[in-house]
């Protein structure tokens, strides 16, 4: 059982590392959002793994999963909204050219 948990956590850590690298290294907004999604997905994997292997009788953990998924959906909506608006007005989603977005 602990082996399966460790395997799941390792997969989560790999996904987190990949997502973090993607969010930090990419300059395209879509890629950055994808990186962030990967980070959140890693969190989901961890949550599910902890629930499944440590506290399978606790339904509250499933609520955490649902909330994180909601956050992912919202984050994606806002992020891609900005990306589409940028693309329509400037023809590019390169974040190196979007300093004015800091307000």
């Amino acid at each position: 059982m602990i082996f399966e948990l460790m395997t799941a956590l390792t997969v989560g850590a790999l996904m987190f590392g990949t997502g973090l690298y993607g969010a930090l290294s990419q300059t395209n907004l879509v890629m950055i959002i994808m990186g962030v999604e990967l980070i959140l997905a890693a969190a989901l994997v961890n949550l599910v793994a902890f629930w499944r292997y440590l506290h399978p009788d606790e339904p509250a953990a499933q609520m955490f999963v649902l909330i994180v998924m909601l956050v992912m959906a919202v984050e994606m909506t806002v992020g891609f909204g900005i990306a589409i608006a940028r693309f329509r007005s400037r023809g590019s989603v390169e974040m190196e050219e979007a300093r004015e977005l800091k307000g």
Partner: protein
Amino acid sequence: MSFLALTLLSPLLAGLAILAFRRASEALALAGAGLGLIGALGLLVSVSGGATVEAVLPGLPDMPLRLVAMPLTAVLAVVVATVAGFVMVYATGYMAKDPEKKRFFGTLLLFVTAMQGLVLSGDWITLLAAWEMIGFASYLLIGFWHGRAGVASAATRAFLYTRSADLGLYLGAFLLIGVAGTSEISRTLATSGTPALIAGLLLLVAAMGKSAQVPLQDWLQRAMAGPTPVSALLHSATLVAAGAILLIRVAPMLPGGALLVIGIVGGVTAVVTGLIALAERDLKRLLAASTSSQYGLMLVAVGAGAPVAALLHLIAHAAIKSSLFLGAGVFQHDRDGTAMDAVAGAGRARPGIFAGFALAALALAGIPPLAGFFSKDAIIAASLASPSAIWLLPLALVGTVLTGAYMGRALRVLWQGDPGTKSGTIPLMAAGMAALVALAVVLGAAFGPLERLLGAEMAEAGLLVPALGLGAALSGLALGWLVPVAGLLRRLLPWAERGFVVAGGMDALMVRPALAIAAGCERLEQWLYNAALSVGRATLSLGQSADRADSDGIDAAIFGLVRRTIALGSQARRLQSGFIHRELAITTIGIAVIIVALFAAPYLV
């Protein structure tokens, strides 16, 4: 009622019309004065049976304005209207060439209106109002030639003298109204006892101011600065008469103490101003001093309890003094001045005018059968019969002698000396004067009916009184004609010339204390001013230091904080570069730091 309106309104409307339309001033003035005279005569006729004509006009609450014509007031109204009418005739000649004559006639008519209002007033409120109007109109008239040197100050002086004495009238009138509960003059006269004494003395003060009694006589001589018709009117029937008229009207109320004071004030005035007149070096000023002196004799009559005698003398004096002034005005017209040196001999150049002047002078001195003889007799008889005869009779007799003396002196000056030239014919001036002189001559005959009309027959006093009066008058005239002033007055002369230092006495009694009080007040004010100023300065410096503490301390601290915060903010700004990956990296590092701290915390504690 209609005659009342005619008497009062015709001069008023004529005066206002002159001032408003500024044309035909002579015709309007004569019409106004003439209609006023007709109204006054109508009043006299309608009250001759002893009736009273009264008009009650709405005024203050419970104190309606009343105009009353009874025999006394009607007679006075006729006197005022008559003198005003003839003076107006004279003035049309006298002022013919003056560019400002419209103002002159307008003001003169307002003056006459005010005097008629005073004479006919039936309540104290109307009387006070008329009294003030007289003062104001006389101020305007005396100051008519306000461009000339000294005229404005003479007018101001007249106004202030009479005005300050008017306080007595206010206090007296309000005292009477308060005690009697009504403002109607005839009903307030029922007051008796102490209030009557106090009110009588207060009214005496007012009368002393208006009638130029010692020690308030100085303004009258200076009032000569006005045009001669004004002097004639002021001195005979109007301004100066107001004081005597006031006392004559309230005479029934006055208790013995007040009467004695009035009599003595009048007697002293008669003597003192008689001496001043004797020493005077200016014809008009001599006549002015003589006016004070004659009003002093009237006050003696009031004090002797014979207001009718005072009234008779007032009437006779009105005719006489106005003719004298008109005569003096003619001489002034000829010689451009009224100093004794200037008019010396002027009488010989105009024998007709001189004859009129001389007749009036003799009438004033009291030579029978001229008007002054009868009125002066009445005064001497009254003072002989009064309980205080021991005071009043000598004063009245000396006053009479002095009257003769200064008139004799004036006549001699006018007659002797170089006849010189005269400046053209003066029909209007001569006509006005002739009518008044005629009155001065024949008025004596009217005194009997007048006394009956007023219901106060003079007691027959045998031969003693006429003999005394005639003797005093003749000796006075002889002294004045024959003996030079210096010989007559000897050591008194310099005193008399300086107005007996009465002016100086006034100076010491009133002016200097007033100045001292003023100086004290000024010092006090300066002190208060300085105190207030130093308080202000202290407060100001306190405020300045507070301001400095505010700007140097609090403001500096606050602004320093603000500057630091701004600097900190601009430092912190740099973190927000706008490069998303950089900011993400910073976020990541931050989270890593927090995680490390959380893991390390249990070991550090």
